[in-house]
């Protein structure tokens, strides 16, 4: 169970680590957590848009990834994002692919 929101299942990705002394996280309070979640969705969606995918959050406890044809994938942790997105897009997201790097540089 997530110690922050009290619901079963929770994103335990390292970028949203549970707040502990010495740990860097945006999980320390509700406003910071929601602001970071909105930022993460914005940046992720800019990347996903290069393959016409769109990510949204469901009640702050799951992610829903959708393709333009209506296929969806639901997962709980950000660590699953890129493997799910690659499966939905039909080819993996490879940050070392020069053509993908070029498409990221073109995002405005």
């Amino acid at each position: 169970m997530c110690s922050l929101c009290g619901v079963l299942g929770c994103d335990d990705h390292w970028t949203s680590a549970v707040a502990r002394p010495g740990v860097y996280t945006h999980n320390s309070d509700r406003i910071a957590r929601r602001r970071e979640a909105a930022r993460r969705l914005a940046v992720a969606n800019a990347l996903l848009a290069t393959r016409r995918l769109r990510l949204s959050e469901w009640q702050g406890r799951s992610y829903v990834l959708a393709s333009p044809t209506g296929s969806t994938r639901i997962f709980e942790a950000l660590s699953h994002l890129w493997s799910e997105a690659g499966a939905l897009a039909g080819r993996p997201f490879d940050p070392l692919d020069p053509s993908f790097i070029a498409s990221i540089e073109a995002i405005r």
Partner: protein
Amino acid sequence: MNGPTPVHLLTGFLGSGKTTLLRRMLADPAMAGAAVLVNEFGEIGLDHELLDRIDETVVLLKSGCLCCTVRGELADALLALHSRRARGEVPFFDRVAVETTGMADPYPALSTIRSHPVLRNHYRTVGVVTTVDAVNAPGLLDTRLEALRQIGAADLLALTKTDLAPPARVSDLIARLASVNPSARVMTASEVGAMDFLTEAGSLPPPPESARLNHHAGTFRADTPVTSFALEIEQPIDWTGFGLWLTMLLDRHGENVFRVKGILNLMGEDRPVAVHGVQRLVHSPVHLERWPDERRTTRIVFIVHGLDHALIEASFRAFDAMARRIAARGVSA
């Protein structure tokens, strides 16, 4: 006790002196409160008999090698220790040392502790110590990927059998280890004290001299070398973009990223943030109290197997610039 119990992983190739080092560490009062898990590959486990300490906090994992067949056994042993400590059935322990088999890739053990739904609340991995045999290591670095993975995962490299190897060979090995894993400390095993063994990886920034570029670190399979390099970025970077970039890099290439370790100069933060990971596992980022020197730059050391340094840097810069453009225009998910 408060908070998760620290777990220290001791690894190193077959016969490289893991048990000898562990035995000496356990004799130190600083390690008096440590429980010990020993993983041995073989019909009859012997290593735990050599530790001079027979009580219920010394556990032998004997069903196979930690990185493949006994991950469940590791989890069960740690959970049993936790429960029995809570019930007062075993002597109190304040940390755990896990000795792996010589063939083990340390990543699965780290990953088990980090991602197990119960373990992750009660234990946290804080450091990897790898023993390196000065006599045999030079040959192993050319032929055994397991040895390179163990060295790449290390926070502390303990050189053993240095008295049996010519001094020139030892100094060559030290130089080579520094190029395989520039973020690790290198010490001879006899110099390693309990406090070195117990130092938490996240509490140490990468050594300043680690910002060396394009080392050819090993010759494993001549067509796919293991190499290390450092990125240094002057401009403050975007945390969100960094997180998504590293997550995508490790999702796609994690098995070939032996190590990532760095300090980040983040937009909007005065203090640096330390990040370190082994293959697909990234530890919780640590907010450091101060910069290690006067350079307020992002410095990240990578140890990679057959990945193009220039593409990693180009990719990092492209993600960061894109994330900063989105931050500048305001968020609209």
